[in-house]
């Protein structure tokens, strides 16, 4: 099991390297000149040349890539002599816009993204799985049909639309919630929950439908399994049969997609954060794209990819812990 974990982690590192390279290549191929971006509008050719040297843009791309990677694991410094700027580990460069270190920008915004992602995930998991199980148990009933239609509706609602409607109803009309702000959970738990509630609902509506449908399908399949019949033949109470023998296997695929979805969201719920104006990693990415702030875009991309890759490893490990057959193979 430990060996399995180590092997998966090693693979994850390789994948991250590949992503890193691919992202870097994309930026290298982009027409925009990073030195121009770093310098701003009115900029003399000498100044640009100077910046090129400082950022190392005069080196071949492979050397630049090597320096970038080295910066992440060992830190680096830009420029020489008295003007040298050190960039501590893990160095992802500095924002062209604010000159702040990209890593600092990311970690500063991470709590908001994590709050949104984890809260929404808990909500959609609870609602989606429950609805799916009930639908499967009452297949063909009015409830089942209504739930599945609602699920389809939830999936197809655009986030911007849901966000606007929610804000209009809950903030403007009913006045029960404030406009969402970045409130730290540790400072003001109630304010935090109030701010996060609408983003949670918005995201959960998007995902709960998918989870309900998958759960329903998986549950129907596992209800037809022979071992469920065996469980009934033992005389187990129906509740135990359903929970232990039908639901447990049905949840296995849910674990997989849940890990992936959560991983992807931890790296920033881009649209949701923008829609509510919450300063998370997704908002950072959106702003960076609008201002062509290359180091930030690169940093956010890697950061988000890191979460997805880590989520993959976590899913594999959880899967191995839950399924004895996977454990045996790994």
């Amino acid at each position, binding site marked *: 099991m430990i060996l399995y974990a180590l092997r998966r982690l090693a693979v994850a590192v390789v994948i991250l390297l590949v992503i890193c390279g691919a992202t870097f290549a994309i930026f290298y191929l982009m027409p925009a000149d990073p030195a121009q971006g770093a310098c701003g509008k009115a900029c003399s050719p000498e100044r640009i040349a100077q910046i090129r040297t400082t950022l190392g843009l005069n080196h071949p791309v492979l050397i630049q890539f090597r320096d970038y990677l080295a910066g992440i694991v060992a830190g680096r410094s830009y420029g020489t002599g008295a003007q040298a700027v050190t960039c501590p580990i893990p160095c992802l460069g500095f924002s062209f816009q604010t000159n702040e270190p990209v890593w600092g920008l990311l970690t500063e915004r991470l709590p908001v993204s994590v709050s949104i992602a984890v809260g929404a995930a808990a909500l959609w998991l609870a609602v989606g799985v429950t609805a799916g199980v009930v639908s499967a148990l009452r297949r063909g009933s009015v409830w089942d049909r209504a739930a599945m239609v609602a699920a389809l509706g939830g999936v197809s609602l655009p986030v911007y639309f849901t966000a606007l409607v929610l804000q209009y109803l809950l903030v403007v009309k009913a006045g029960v919630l404030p406009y969402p702000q970045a409130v730290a959970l540790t400072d003001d738990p109630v304010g935090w929950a109030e701010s996060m509630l609408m983003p949670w609902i918005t995201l959960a509506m998007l995902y709960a439908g998918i989870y309900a449908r998958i759960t329903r399908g998986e549950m129907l399949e596992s209800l037809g*399994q022979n071992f469920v*019949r065996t469980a*009934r*033949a033992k*005389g187990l109470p129906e509740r135990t049969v359903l929970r232990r*023998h039908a639901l447990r296997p049905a949840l296995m695929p849910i674990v997989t997609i849940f890990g992936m979805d959560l991983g992807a969201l931890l790296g920033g719920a881009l649209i949701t954060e923008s829609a509510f104006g919450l300063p998370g990693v997704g908002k950072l990415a959106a702003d960076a794209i609008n201002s062509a702030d290359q180091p930030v875009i690169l940093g956010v991309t890697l950061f988000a990819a890191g979460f997805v890759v880590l989520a993959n490893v976590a899913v594999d490990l959880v899967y191995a812990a839950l*399924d*004895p057959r996977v454990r*045996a193979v790994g």
Partner: protein
Amino acid sequence: MSLLTVRDLSVEFPSGVRAVDGLDLELDAGRVLGVVGESGSGKSVTSLAVMGLLPPDTRTSGDIRFQGRQLTGAGPRALRALRGDRMAMIFQDPLSCLNPYYTVGFQIAEAYRAHRRAGRRAARDIAVRMLDRVGIPEPERRARAYPHEFSGGMRQRVLIAMALCLEPDLLIADEPTTALDVTVQAQILDLLRELRERSGTAIMLITHDMGVVAGLADDVVVMHGGRAVEHGAVRDVFYQPRAAYTRGLLACVPRVDGPLPERLPTLRTPAAGEPPEVTS
């Protein structure tokens, strides 16, 4: 006294299929009743009806009496109390009948704890004892293993251990050896025979295999089209079959002591009610 009496049992699925159609059968305590018949003759449906395991939307009529108690129309609670405790069942495909996510020890202990007050440890010990009883080596260690770590024959032993852990009065075995290879089949049948001698559990043994019936059963029911076309002691039915259908069925069994036929006779499925044709 009769342990299980089935009178005029009919089972109809919502699809309109009448899988069992006026079936009568009888099984005395401690006896082995072989139930034979071609595929689709309603053997499995009958056993599920006795266990109360048919889907809720099936229509069942007639009488099923078990230990004098009426099972048709009994509530789910009453049936659940009997299932696994007084009557137990094992099925054809032993791998798919075990839950891959739990150890076999847990799954046996679970059967015990469904009906008896027992702590985890106590139930676990019983599971180990049962594994030992059905001939699984190193039961202590094997109780902690998962179904995929067992061979087919061992899995069937696990299912038997699970079914017998509360010493039921009736064991329904629905083609318990069909998925197994021949030597393992023989081992499982030996095990059933031995368990029956030791515990006096009555067995309703569903099978395609006339040889199995001859080797293990006291009585036999021949089913065809959802009803019993023949019911009697094995010896009588085998040597003096009354129904043409039974004669046809027996003609399909190759004999070790006879001449080897070019082709085995096959049984043409006749229209309902007609005797089958045997062609060579």
